[in-house]
């Protein structure tokens, strides 16, 4: 179908069909639940942090291809990373989604932060309604980080 290639890139569909790091982690791992009030989607992020490093991460819940693939790619990208790196990645990703910083200013891309596969989600910006889908897991991650 013409027009949707930018949105539904093959790598996105792949993560949607075969989501990585699905599951749960038992306490004391942090657990946050994110809701998309628009569509009713829910996402669970389980985060095990040791010595300021993401030792393990699991994702649960249900959602559309964009929210699920975003969560899957996010889990791959942060596993084993130091917390400052994770925070920088969240910031970089939100910047790509055209989401401003806390002061309402555009987030300038930090070239030292590599997005890798996540760049496939760039096309989402053209579909503003779907930005919430793409960022759902990232906001949930921030909540889980706050608990860690």
């Amino acid at each position: 179908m013409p027009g949707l290639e930018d949105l539904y890139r093959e790598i996105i569909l792949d993560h949607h069909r075969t989501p990585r790091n699905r599951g749960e982690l038992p306490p004391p791992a942090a657990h946050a639940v994110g809701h998309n009030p628009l569509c009713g989607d829910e996402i669970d992020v389980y985060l095990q942090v040791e010595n300021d490093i993401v030792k393990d991460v699991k994702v649960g819940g249900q959602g559309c291809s964009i929210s699920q693939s975003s969560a899957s790619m996010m889990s791959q990208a942060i596993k084993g990373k130091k917390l400052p790196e994770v925070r920088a990645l969240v910031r970089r990703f939100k910047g790509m989604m055209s989401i401003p910083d806390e002061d309402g200013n555009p987030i300038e891309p930090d070239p030292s932060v590599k997005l890798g596969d996540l760049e496939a989600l760039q096309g989402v910006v053209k579909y503003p309604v779907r930005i919430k889908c793409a960022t759902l897991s990232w906001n949930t991650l921030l909540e889980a980080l706050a608990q860690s």
Partner: protein
Amino acid sequence: MSTLDAATIKKQFPLLLREINGLPLVYLDSANSSQKPQSVIDSMTTFMEQSYAPINRSAYHLAAAATDAFEGAREKVQRFINARRAHEVVFTKNATEALNLVAYSWGRANLSSGDVVLLTHMEHHANIVPWQMLAQDKGIVLRWVPLTADGQLDLTTLPELLAGAKVFGFTAMSNVMGTITPVQQLCAAAHKAGAIAVVDACQYVPHNVTDVQAWGADFIAFSSHKMCGPSGIGVLWGREELLQAMPPFLGGGNMILDVRLDGFTCAELPAKFEAGTPPITEAVGLGAAIDFLTDLGMANVRQHEIEVASYAMRTLRERFGDDITLHGPTNVEVRGATFSLAFRGIHPHDLSQVLDQRNVCVRAGHHCAKPLMRELGVNATARASFYLYNDTADVDTLADALDSASDIFGS
């Protein structure tokens, strides 16, 4: 041959004649909000160009004529739903506000801790949350009528559920599954148990002949924007005795007879419940929408939608078999032309995105009925809702567009 000629009707809706990317628009989101015919658009434009003035408070000719236009709309609503008196028709912002008005005003005056309000599992949030707010404040107890497997109300335990209840609030037609409930029977059961019947008629009134007296209802609520009228105005109809006995809802101008430093006296019905400047132009638009619907004949609208709904169920099942789930009743006698569907495991958001490529407009989400979503075991559905301007060709386009979703998601 259909009762209504949807192609001719469609020509009266300027927006439906739009093309996007060279393709016609297939608008299947009327359960969300309907499109507007030229007559409604013209009535509002003409009113604002030639007749607009404040109502109920100025002596000059223009204001008196505007008041007549506003009150004329109320009389049109009265006739449309066969209410006994025009002043039983209260204009609100929308159906949501109308239901809040009942819960807040009637509820606070008549319910106390431990009193039971019976609702159903297929209610819109607008007929749930106001009662939950009242439960938090007043300690009332909520009970729920469950559903049958095919998305109708399971009435086998209704007498037990109604025992001791003061309110039975229920939808006349589900906004998710299109289920039409036996309103008359439910009102009678409520009264037998000593409860009042509060009917959310938001999905019903635009598609069916409505007769509040035949129903025996106590309150009904509906919105203009789902019945070819403008947004910004809705209706609460209530039985005169109940409205008379209720305290006002919002306070301010228009709803008072007198204000002193030590208190106020309420205005008569319906002004008592219409604080502040109401949606005047919108009332005129709603009146024009009622004229439009009355000209078509609501029985014809219903018959047309039965035909489209039958065709949709047949076509979608023939083409997709078990790959498609249509929630709700299969019997068109107890359903409207609103379909929540699940298709080949494709998430509703993705489905609606792909359908949009063909200008097929459906809603994806929880449809403001999250308790029902949980009952159905889903987070969301894609909902295609048909109206008087849709026809069987729209069903075919929907089916073709569904096929193309499979191409992307490979399922």
